[in-house]
């Protein structure tokens, strides 16, 4: 599908900046105006840092005028999920417990984006501690889906998805532990990249699950996501999980197309999954057909049952999140929102043996997926089995698993990319998910760009008004 009003990507904005056709200050002012225009309805931001944004933009303009070019992100507005520390700003994690918290130094991601000359607009909404959900007892309203604000964005990178989909920013930073980048990306029709575990430093990001947390971008296009990853990837000796792996050029080969790629489809993951819609299945099949027409080899493959990945992931995530919050849950449980409290407290019911068995299964599952990726360049699977639910349909209490299939690749740590491909009949987006070999984000992004091109997907300008039905 295609729509009118394709906005300029990061690379094009950079060309305009360097040609003197626009200034970083103008870009920042336009972004701030857009926030003023739509965020009252969408609630993507919990903090708009106007002074910081304009100061960053003026510095970018001065540097570019002086011939000091920091690269493609120089002068580009962005925002961070409010789990990332920025010196001097609160990192609230969307919790009333942390409204007065002030970060004393930048997170690694904030450092790298600042070094790249990015302009920071502020902090974005998240599910409480990246684990709760939309609920009435949050200190700030939950984000709403720009395609239809009566629907959820998904979480936990809810604000980043809403901000990108509505054109407030071209990219935003999120985190993904059980699908928290890819789920909101799919529900909001933007690209969401969960890099390989350890590819992007987690230093200064409030943890949910130490062994499963990943940091990555949500962006309007695959190219924009690649540009962001280029800036934030790399070894950090201060993050014990950081991988000392070379950082390739993620833009090289981005437009090679899908010809020659070998792609496996673990169809049993989604074909009969609870809640999968016919439209979601058709979207995947259409993507498969398009890839085949463009010269890719695409075949169904078999992986271990989805339930093994999801159970393994849930046990590890719940146990590790509980360990993070144990002291506060004992001393001040009522300061959490009810949903967050309920979810994290379940970690106390898990035994050490449960956790160790999950770790053992994790290692086995990672080996199986890595083995499959020796025979296949990529995997293609579902991202959202259905479109984003209505806000008023979300139950108050414990929530059953969502329509997002993301656990397998936070369990195994392989890079995974959500790419929107079409709108369903309800006017809400559907996406597919591409998974690659460890540290082979280049191939994942190449395939993502091919899928994006083949589907004709373009994020329209002007959501939410452009998307209203």
């Amino acid at each position, binding site marked *: 599908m295609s729509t009118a009003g394709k906005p300029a990507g990061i690379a094009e904005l950079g060309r305009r900046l360097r040609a003197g056709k626009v200034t970083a200050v103008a870009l920042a002012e336009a972004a701030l105006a857009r926030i003023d225009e739509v965020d009252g309805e969408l609630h993507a931001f919990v903090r708009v840092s106007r002074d910081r944004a304009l100061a960053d933009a003026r510095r970018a303009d001065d540097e570019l005028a002086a011939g000091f070019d920091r690269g493609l992100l120089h002068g580009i507005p962005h925002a961070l999920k409010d789990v990332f520390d920025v010196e001097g700003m609160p990192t609230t994690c969307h919790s009333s417990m942390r409204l007065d918290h002030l970060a004393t130094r930048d997170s690694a991601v904030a450092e790298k984006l600042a070094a790249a000359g990015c302009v920071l607009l502020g902090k974005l909404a998240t599910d409480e501690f990246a684990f709760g959900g939309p609920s009435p007892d949050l200190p700030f309203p939950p984000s709403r889906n720009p395609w239809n604000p009566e629907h959820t964005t998904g979480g936990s990178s809810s604000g980043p998805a809403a901000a990108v989909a509505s054109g407030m920013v071209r990219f935003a930073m999120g985190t993904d532990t059980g699908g928290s980048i890819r789920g909101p990306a799919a529900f909001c029709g933007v690209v969401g990249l969960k890099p390989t575990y350890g590819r992007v430093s987690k230093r200064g990001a409030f943890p949910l699950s130490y062994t499963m947390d990943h940091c990555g971008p949500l962006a309007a296009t695959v190219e924009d996501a690649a540009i962001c990853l280029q800036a934030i990837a790399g070894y950090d000796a201060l993050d014990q999980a950081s991988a000392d792996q070379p950082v390739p050029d993620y833009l090289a080969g981005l437009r090679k197309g899908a010809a020659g790629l070998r792609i496996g489809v673990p169809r049993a993951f989604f074909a009969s999954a609870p809640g999968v819609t016919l439209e979601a299945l058709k979207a995947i099949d259409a993507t498969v057909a398009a890839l085949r027409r463009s010269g890719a080899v695409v075949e169904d493959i078999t992986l271990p049952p989805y*339930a*093994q990945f999801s*159970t*393994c992931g*849930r*046990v590890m995530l*719940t146990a590790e999140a509980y360990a993070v919050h*144990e002291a506060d*849950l*004992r001393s001040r*449980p*009522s300061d959490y929102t*009810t949903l967050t*409290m*309920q*979810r994290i*407290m*379940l970690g*106390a*019911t*898990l035994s050490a043996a*449960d956790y*160790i*068995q*999950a*770790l*053992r*299964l*994790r*290692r*086995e599952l990672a080996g199986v997926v890595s083995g499959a990726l020796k025979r296949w360049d990529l995997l293609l699977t579902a991202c959202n089995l259905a479109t984003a639910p209505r806000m008023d349909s979300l139950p*108050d*209490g*414990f929530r*059953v698993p969502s329509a997002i299939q993301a656990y397998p690749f936070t369990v195994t740590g392989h890079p995974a990319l959500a790419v929107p491909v079409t709108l369903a009949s309800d006017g809400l987006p559907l996406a597919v998910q591409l998974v690659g070999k460890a540290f082979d984000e280049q191939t994942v992004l190449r395939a993502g760009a091919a899928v994006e091109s083949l589907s004709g997907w373009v994020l329209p300008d002007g959501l939410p008004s452009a998307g209203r039905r």
Partner: protein
Amino acid sequence: MPGSNKDGQPEGDLQLEFATLMRRAGLAIPPDRIADMLVGYKDIRGRLEILRQPRAHSAEPSNTYALPPSAMTP
């Protein structure tokens, strides 16, 4: 079986088990949230057997500890 979870465990036993685990952990659940938490507990408890796969003693330990090289330098 009515009043049981899918393992056939009576509901009352499950509630007692959950309450014991919460007490052991030092956690106080607001009374109006216990029912919802039991739903979550039943769900996660019912899945745990998936983790139990036949594994030989020789299976690699999941979280082998190793010292970083700098700690081994005299």
